[in-house]
């Protein structure tokens, strides 16, 4: 910019020195037109090498982008109609050589190159771009192993996407013919240049649009093939649209692009990568003659196996029939065994029963038995319970009947007889008691008389009759003279009564002892 400014200054200086009046006067459009003509005329078509800067694709389909080096930038345009012919689409960061016509865009006072061809500048730049694109597509999952489909064992129809002329299709057809002739549909495409990618993309998608049983037979297998070439020649097979079409193909796809050492991005997206077109044909079909031999082999094995099976059975049958014993031999042993067992049978039966009895005794009551008993008991209880009121009524009735019968049997005469019998017995007892009491009384009276006589004999009163007397003072018996002197009055008892001598003599009161038994005794009788 500094140099540009300097140049303007020089121009002004020149103009000022030449004089303003002589200078022609342009309108803006006149000058713009003049500049445009000058640019186009002076430069014409140019080839410029640089790195692609910002890329903008307008809705109109035109493309605007920059080409730059480390210091300067040139604007580039590619019109919609030119895009398909570019060869390589501009991609930011890509080192390219653009070819086009230098021109200006007067409305903005800008100059630019109208680019109609883009080449990638050198293999290194291309490889860098390839790596970048590969990483991007891998990140999208297009190369994932789980996307790979198995190739059919024997495809009926094989679709080949390639150039219809040239060695590649010839190699493929030759190898197919050698191995296993098949139906082949060729989809002709450009295999290099700007048309390559769009045509290959359309071919893969087109084959997939065929419906099974449609007017055009749908292939069971696709081969996308191209012979060897430079990286630029093969570039179409690195285009994203081709890679995406290959990945999206429902028909299994073999890629065979370039030589074994060339690897294009379609190889990562295809179901199988063949190093060469011939190898693709080998992957596509098995060898018919091998299969025929295999089928013959299978047939032979089949027959042999059957024959062997039958032969073995025959042999086995022969062996068995030889080994078959005479019927009598079989029977003898059996009869003997029968005798033996028949002999042992009764004992075994007895022993069996005994052992079971023992086990039964040991086992005692089993839970089941108890449960059964319990169930039976409950049933009986229920039955009885249901019958209880009835039973009670019945018992009362029975008792009532019994009572009636007993009452009926009651007789007065029987009671009277009983009373008479008992009063007679009472009379007898009463008499016996009276007699006994009287006898006892008499005995006691006699004894009493005897005892009384004895008492009278032994008592002091008898001595009175013999001249003795008893002296008393009051109730005291006086036996001494001193006692008599102290006493106020004395009473003397004689045989025939008592006498108080010192006082006026009174008739002694005789005190007779009762000689009869106490009167209360008499009441006993």
């Amino acid at each position, binding site marked *: 910019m500094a140099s540009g400014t300097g140049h303007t200054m020089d121009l002004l200086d020149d103009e000022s020195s030449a004089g303003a009046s002589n200078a022609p006067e342009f309108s803006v459009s006149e000058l713009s037109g003049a500049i445009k003509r000058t640019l186009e005329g002076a430069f014409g078509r140019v080839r410029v090498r640089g790195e692609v800067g910002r890329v903008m694709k307008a809705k109109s389909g035109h493309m605007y982008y920059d080409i730059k080096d480390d210091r300067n930038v040139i604007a580039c345009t590619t019109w919609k109609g030119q895009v398909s012919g570019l060869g390589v689409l501009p991609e930011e960061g890509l080192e390219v050589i653009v070819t086009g016509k230098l021109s200006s865009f007067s409305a903005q006072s800008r100059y630019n190159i109208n680019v109609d061809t883009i080449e990638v500048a050198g293999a290194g730049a291309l490889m860098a771009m390839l790596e970048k694109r590969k990483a991007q597509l891998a990140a999208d999952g297009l190369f994932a192993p789980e996307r790979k489909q198995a190739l059919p064992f024997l495809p009926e129809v094989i679709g080949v996407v390639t150039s219809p002329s040239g060695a590649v299709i010839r190699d493929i*057809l030759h190898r197919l013919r050698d191995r296993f002739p098949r139906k082949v549909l*060729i989809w002709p495409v450009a295999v290099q240049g700007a048309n390559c990618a769009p*045509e290959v993309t359309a*071919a893969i998608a087109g084959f997939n649009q065929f419906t099974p049983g449609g007017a*055009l037979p749908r292939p069971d297998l696709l081969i996308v093939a191209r012979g060897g070439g430079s990286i630029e020649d093969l570039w179409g097979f690195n285009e994203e649209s081709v890679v995406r079409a290959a990945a999206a193909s429902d028909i299994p796809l073999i890629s065979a692009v370039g030589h074994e050492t060339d690897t294009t991005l379609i190889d990562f997206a295809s179901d199988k990568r063949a190093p060469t077109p011939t190898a693709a044909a080998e992957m596509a079909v098995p060898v018919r003659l091998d299969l025929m031999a295999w089928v013959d082999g299978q047939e032979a*094995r089949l027959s042999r196996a*059957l024959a*062997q099976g039958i032969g073995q059975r025959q042999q086995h049958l022969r062996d068995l029939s030889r080994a078959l014993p005479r019927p009598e031999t079989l029977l003898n042993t059996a009869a003997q065994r029968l005798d033996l067992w028949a002999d042992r049978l009764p004992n075994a039966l007895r022993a069996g029963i005994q052992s079971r009895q023992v086990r039964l005794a040991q086992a005692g009551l089993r839970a089941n038995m108890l449960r059964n008993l319990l169930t039976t008991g409950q049933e009986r209880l229920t039955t009885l319970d249901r019958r209880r009121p009835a039973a009670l009524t019945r018992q009362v009735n029975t008792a009532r009947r019994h009572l009636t019968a007993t009452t009926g049997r009651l007789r007065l005469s029987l009671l009277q007889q009983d009373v008479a019998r008992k009063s007679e017995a009472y009379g007898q007892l009463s008499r016996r008691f009276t007699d006994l009491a009287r006898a006892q009384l008499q005995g006691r009276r006699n004894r009493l008389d005897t005892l009384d006589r004895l008492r009278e004999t032994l008592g002091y009163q008898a001595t009175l009759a013999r001249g003795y007397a008893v002296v008393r003072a009051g109730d005291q018996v006086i036996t001494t003279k001193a006692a008599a002197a102290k006493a106020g009055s004395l009473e003397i008892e004689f045989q025939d009564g008592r006498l108080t001598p010192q006082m006026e003599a009174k008739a002694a009161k005789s005190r007779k002892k009762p000689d009869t038994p106490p009167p209360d005794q008499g009441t006993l009788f």
Partner: protein
Amino acid sequence: MTDTPVNEMSFEQAMAELEKVVGQLEAGDVPLEASIELYERGSALKKRCEAQLKAAEEKVAAITLDGDGQATGTKPVEGL
């Protein structure tokens, strides 16, 4: 065994089935009647395989395209 009738089997199916039948028969543990049935099935499968192998013929055609790149039909390709 698959249920597909032998005459409708693809070559691959018939081949796999034939291999199985031969294997079973060779194992020798099938009853006699079954082994005869197996043999007959094996023969049918073998015929099916053979017919498909013999019927193989080459037929090459190229897709014809309209102006928009759409497939319109085929034309035979000779001499390749």
